[in-house]
């Protein structure tokens, strides 16, 4: 699992690559909580390199959206591959998150 974070203005862009499963969820959770602890409130998860997500990975994503909304922040996802998209659809997570095909659209949603 690779987690890359870049800042664009006030927005943290978190790029995930590899597998978000029971063995890697802790790393993502820790990184997200660090950003939150630094006062970040706006997040875009770029999932273009994310190959796989399981319910353990969904747990971290749910935590992220709950924590962000609790502080009146904003969160968006972009570039989900077909497999990840399917898991989001079955679990109903596609209606919980704002999901965009391109990173720029996700950034526009956050800025709006």
């Amino acid at each position, binding site marked *: 699992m690779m987690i890359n974070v870049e800042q664009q203005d006030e927005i943290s862009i978190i790029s995930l690559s590899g597998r978000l499963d029971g063995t890697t969820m802790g790393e993502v959770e820790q990184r997200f909580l660090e950003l939150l602890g630094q006062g970040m409130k706006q997040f875009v998860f770029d999932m273009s390199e994310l190959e796989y997500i399981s*319910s353990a990975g969904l747990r971290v994503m*749910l935590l992220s959206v709950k924590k962000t909304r609790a502080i009146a922040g904003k969160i968006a996802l972009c570039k989900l591959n077909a497999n990840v998209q399917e898991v989001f659809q079955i679990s109903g997570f596609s209606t*919980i998150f704002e999901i965009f095909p391109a990173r720029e659209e996700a950034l526009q949603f956050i800025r709006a």
Partner: protein
Amino acid sequence: MIMRRHFVTVSSDLLHWNQLRQHIALFCDEQQISQEVMLQLQLVCEEWFINIITHGYQKLSKEKQSSSEIHFQISYNSDDDEILIYFIDYAPAFDPLRQETPNVALSAEEREIGGLGIYLMKELMDCCTYQRIDECNHLKLYKRM
């Protein structure tokens, strides 16, 4: 009938999940099963594997554990064009087919994560059967290709 099988027995430790998923990848590669289906099979197996550990073995005290192994088999029947995944474990009885279906229409604030793994497993497979035989959980998961 052409039937190809892979067997593996792993101990119930989350670290062994990587070992199991590599077996699935290898099997799918040999059978020329698509990447898309391979990822679905890995997902289904991860959900059940973690379930066995968290709802099964972790709830047992060490003395009460006769075995903490998980037996896993994946096979492909070319006549029926069907994949069968078969898990056996020694944890307390747990029937995934009798678990409540989570409400996937709830908002983020109302959502709880529990039960999603089993739900994903049932949704991605075509048929699941559970039996408790001789103090073991037997779960069979079928997927038509």
